[in-house]
């Protein structure tokens, strides 16, 4: 129990620290929303004074002249209460919650599923490779995936696009999350289209992410297999499958689990490139956009969200370790 309380304490503290950084880092960026807006205005070929721009932005709830401490406390309050405001960047005026709400399912669906799949598959393959050390699977897959894990994500994506999605009649679509003109909903064509549009981006994530998991799991597995309790299980005449998963696999898996949670921070980062290359409308590209257009409210909300996502995953993984590893339960 104390373990959980401590984890929760860590959660709150880290969240606070991250949120504080999230507040100050964007404000340290050069330029300001006014500049960004001004840049957009000047396209109309008119002369707008900076003061006037400020009135426009003030309309959207941005007041740069306010005391920074006051801004900070209001920010914390807003973040916690979910009043995330409206975008002051390229989606000027759109409620941040709507923007995120539109993009989130796609990011979760694509990147989330692909990442989890990579982890699960990688762990499984790693388990088998480690178990049959020197066998066929072990001889082929880990070396192959050392190579793929070192490939730049976007490059693989470009390669795939040029193989599968170029030409007048491409095999797979290269952009968007579903065919234009389909109405989203639980109907066959829509779901089919979503799946079809997901193959390339998800496949790319899978290929570049799975290697790490295979390798670490394999190595953990090999190390675990040398443990006495595995030998003991053999001595007990326990069937191989049970030894592989129940004895060796489970123990080898535990250190991977927290590694997985920790790596999620990197995963969220990775989505930017995925969405950029595949024109996939998710959070990643939104993040990028919000950054380059100094869109504080959107940026803050996205930062909060991704920090929260990683933290929750860390917490969930802690919890899973807690369930899977009786030692963690009593360590306190």
């Amino acid at each position, binding site marked *: 129990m104390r373990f959980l309380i401590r984890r929760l304490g860590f959660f709150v503290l880290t969240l606070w620290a991250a949120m504080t950084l999230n507040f100050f880092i964007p404000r340290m*960026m*050069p*330029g300001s929303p006014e*500049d*960004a*807006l*001004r*840049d*957009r*205005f*000047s*396209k*109309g*070929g*008119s*002369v*707008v*004074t*900076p003061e*006037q721009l400020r*009135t*426009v932005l*003030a*309309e*959207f709830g941005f007041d740069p002249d306010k005391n920074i401490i006051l801004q900070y406390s209001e920010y914390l309050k807003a973040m916690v209460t979910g009043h995330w405001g409206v*975008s002051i*960047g*390229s*989606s*000027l*005026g*759109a*409620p941040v919650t*709507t*923007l995120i709400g*539109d*993009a989130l399912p796609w990011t979760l669906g694509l990147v989330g599923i692909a990442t989890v799949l990579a982890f699960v598959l990688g762990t499984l393959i790693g388990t088998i490779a480690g178990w049959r050390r020197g066998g066929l699977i072990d001889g082929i897959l880990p070396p192959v995936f050392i190579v793929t894990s070192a490939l730049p994500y976007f490059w693989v994506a470009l390669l795939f696009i040029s193989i599968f*999605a*170029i*030409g*007048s009649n*491409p095999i797979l679509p*290269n*952009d*968007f*999350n579903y065919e*234009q*003109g389909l*109405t*989203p909903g639980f109907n066959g064509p829509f779901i089919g289209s979503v799946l079809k549009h997901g193959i390339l981006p998800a496949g790319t994530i899978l290929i570049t992410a799975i290697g790490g998991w295979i390798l670490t799991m394999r190595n953990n597995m090999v190390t675990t297999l040398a443990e006495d309790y595995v030998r003991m299980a053999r001595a007990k005449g326990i069937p191989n499958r049970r030894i592989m998963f129940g004895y060796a696999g489970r123990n080898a898996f535990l250190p991977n689990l927290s590694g997985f949670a920790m790596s999620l921070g990197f995963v969220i980062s990775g989505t930017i490139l995925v969405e*950029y*290359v*595949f*024109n996939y*409308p998710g959070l990643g*590209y*939104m993040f990028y*956009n919000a950054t*380059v257009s*100094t869109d504080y409210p959107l940026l803050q909300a996205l930062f909060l969200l991704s920090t929260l996502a990683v933290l929750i995953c860390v917490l969930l993984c802690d919890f899973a370790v807690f369930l899977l590893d009786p030692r963690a339960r009593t360590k306190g």
Partner: protein
Amino acid sequence: GGGDKPIGSASSNPSSSTSSGGQGTGQFKKGGTVTIANVGGQTWPCQFNPFNPAVNQVALGFVYEPLTFVNVLKSGATTPMLASAFSWSPTKDSIVFTIRSGVKWSDGQPFSADDVVYTFNLMKQQPALDLYSLWTGAGLTSVTAAGDKVTLKFKAPAEPYFFNFANQVGIVPKHIWSTGDAAAKPATWANPKPVGTGAFTVQSCTSNNISYVANGSYWQPGKPYLEKVQYPAYLDNNPANLDLASGKAQWGGQYIPNIDNFYKSKSPDNNYWFPPTANVAIVANNDPSHKATSNLAVRQAIAYALDREQISKIGESGYQPAANQTGVVTPTFDKYFDKDALTAAGYDKPNPDKAKQLLQTAGYSSSNPLKLSVITVTGYTDWDASLAVVKQQLAPVGIELSIQDLQQQSYNQKLYTGDYDLAYSSLSGGPTPYYELRQLLYSKNSAPIGKQANSNYSRYIKPEVDKLFDQYASADPDTQVKLIKQISGYMIKDVPIIPTTESVDWYQYNTKDIEGWPTQEDPYAQPAPYNIPDVGQVLTNLYSKSAQK
């Protein structure tokens, strides 16, 4: 071609001033869809508030219409839209619009002069809506209606602002905007289901795509011909370009590298046209605090050293034509172009020897080379390419150019506050060169170093030039041409900025099914889909070939 009447002239007959191109009323059957590929770099927020600069590109022209359309490509020729006619007072400080009758809002309510008055007064009440600073900057003092006449009164001659208030302001329905959320917060109102007078209405909007359908009760009889418009949200050029090449999208506003190979060769139906509208220039910091660039000889040397044709050919793949030192964009504004003055000054062709000589007089030599840095925006790859060429051209005359790629934000900040030696930059144009030149050279658009300048980033301050700009507002068309030639004389003489290429409208169109596109022969509007309200002109002219069968 219709009448190329300058803005100042009153014109009352809508059909006489619209361009030809097989236009007319109701001569095509309805049907067909056009898909636009224009990178917005974001997903659609599904807002259609025409006063919101972030989204007015998808609202104006499609749903909302101006009083009068001004064609930049035809030196400001006007086409009556919601106003069937207008007339200036002799001193040009007051204008009367005759509001078109028989126009209906897309919700069936009738459109009237009240709506026009309401729209302008809303902008007064809510300064945030007044994107073009009509009430504060242009000196608008009152907007009143009398029957179908609406009068706008100004403090001073206001003809230069006609482009803004007649062409760029979309008229909104009073009955919608005076109630509910819209009235409470008109600036931030999302307006998800816009009601306008335009040829299209929003059928559905997702973050991925906006679908427009034809407005059944559109006031121009028989129009629009197209049934639907799809506007997908592209985040990046590559997918959009791919879709254009494959014909999946038919109307592009895209920079496409190697366009002949990548796009045109893919299909005989793929066409492009890049009409120039403004300048891309090396802006030199004229402020004395910047030693080298405030030195006229240095600026002249750069101007002489540049081979603009090569910059155009290699840096811009020939898409953007070479600019000239007068700052007048050709051929768009040919009649304001003073070719003789240019030739007389020797700026008509590169002259590296002269450049070297000038540098020597300024005290630089091969042993004491001039080191300059130029700021540019990260992501504008054609600029990067152009600057690579510029750098290569300046090297032999003894200028070592270093290129600083900055994020838009930092670039802006440096540009606005004058914290740079040279900046690669472009501004938008207008129906005559006046608009661009005024932004670039008018002293009121400048500011001391450290303060943000509005648009005169070079900090060029010359009372004589200011005076010329001031005269322009109330001058007659011929005098206006003369004034602009005089101003471009100062461009040649003082070289405050050095135009390199002419920025163009990126425009691709596919004629497999859709016809009626603006072309070089029939430039009835700026053709790229990101131009507002020009996009509305194009949309009312397009028709589907397959629907004619």
